[in-house]
């Protein structure tokens, strides 16, 4: 007996999501500078978590859980985007300060 279609969809989408997390982690560890590392990190947060949420959406018992999953993803998107901007700006300011000080 084959597993229900919803379970297959969950396996598929969460697997894709985990792949993004893996790639994001590798990028975070391997990329040379702050901005590229932020790029890798936010990809994991945005797409990885998004695919996880889509995968889990096939398992909900009540439609209101879909709203909760969507809210969690939206909030994580908002927070990750904002944090990435702030870190990038801090890195820029820091780089500028070092250039001025001739280091």
């Amino acid at each position, binding site marked *: 007996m084959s597993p229900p279609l919803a379970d297959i969809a969950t396996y598929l989408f969460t697997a894709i999501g985990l792949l993004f997390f893996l790639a994001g982690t590798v990028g975070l560890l391997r990329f040379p500078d702050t901005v590229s590392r932020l790029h890798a990190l936010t990809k994991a947060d945005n797409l990885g978590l998004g695919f996880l949420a889509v995968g889990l959406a096939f398992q909900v018992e009540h439609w209101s859980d879909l709203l909760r999953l969507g*809210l969690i993803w939206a*909030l994580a998107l*908002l*927070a990750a985007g*904002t944090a990435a*901007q*702030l870190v990038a*700006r801090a890195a820029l300011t820091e780089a500028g300060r070092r250039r001025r000080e001739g280091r």
Partner: protein
Amino acid sequence: MTAPAIDIVLCATVLAVALAAVSGFGVFRAVVFFIVYGVLISMAWLRLDAVDVALAEAAIGAGLTGVLLLSAVARVTRLTGSGSYRPRVNALPAAIAAAGVTVALGWAFLGLPVPRGLTEDVARNLDRSGLENPVNAVLLNFRAWDTLLESVVLLAALIGVWALAPDSGWGGRAGVPQHARRGGVLESFGRTLPPLGLMIGVYVVWAGATAPGGAFQGGTVLAAVLLLVAMAGLLPAPRIAAAGLRLALVAGPAVFLAVGMAGLGWGGFLVLPPAIAKPLILGIEAALTLSIAVTLALLVLGRPEPSTEGGG
């Protein structure tokens, strides 16, 4: 008896992160590892079905304490010019002492008889508590003493922080001035999140009567909203001498004490008559939430700094 793989991985990660936090990679990294440790411990509580504890650990243990420690690191960096502060004491005796305490605690814990616990007593009396969530029934009714004293401890901690204020800063705005860029991302984040944060914070408090949640967890969410608004530069931090602020700070402990004193008429301090226990507890929780939110936010903002502005 075999534990599921996820629990083994979780335990191993908790231990590894805890070790990384105390291994002396510098203060900033230690704090970051401490925050990760809090998140993992919160997941461990979830695995144990202790959702109330998980919520409190995530909100207060990882979130709020993490922010407090981060601002302490920033302050140390500002004062000393570097964040690479290292304690001068030898780490080895401390490590041996800590390991000894851990082993002794573990030995004592395993030596104890399996406790019967109070679960049955609480379950039997739950309908007299006014609440359906047994955890909050204990916190706000059966053992209200502890919660009352906790709320007073929070207030005392804030008074301690304020006591460090220089004379010229007394009565001024809490903390250092925030430098958020006008029209920047932090400002728009600070405008977007508060409505959602307020809703979630109030919901967590309200849900505490029947489901995991409560004044401390919800209050922490509200404190985060207040902090975000202050850090985004949308509202100035409050002046610590403002009457409204002082009122918000003491409202929780004061209402709690007043209800407790009224209980003397029904048979003892903090005795809640079952018929009106729920409205009384809701009243206490509402006041407590306000006080907890404001106190926690002000703890993070810190003491007022020496005044450079002229009165206005």
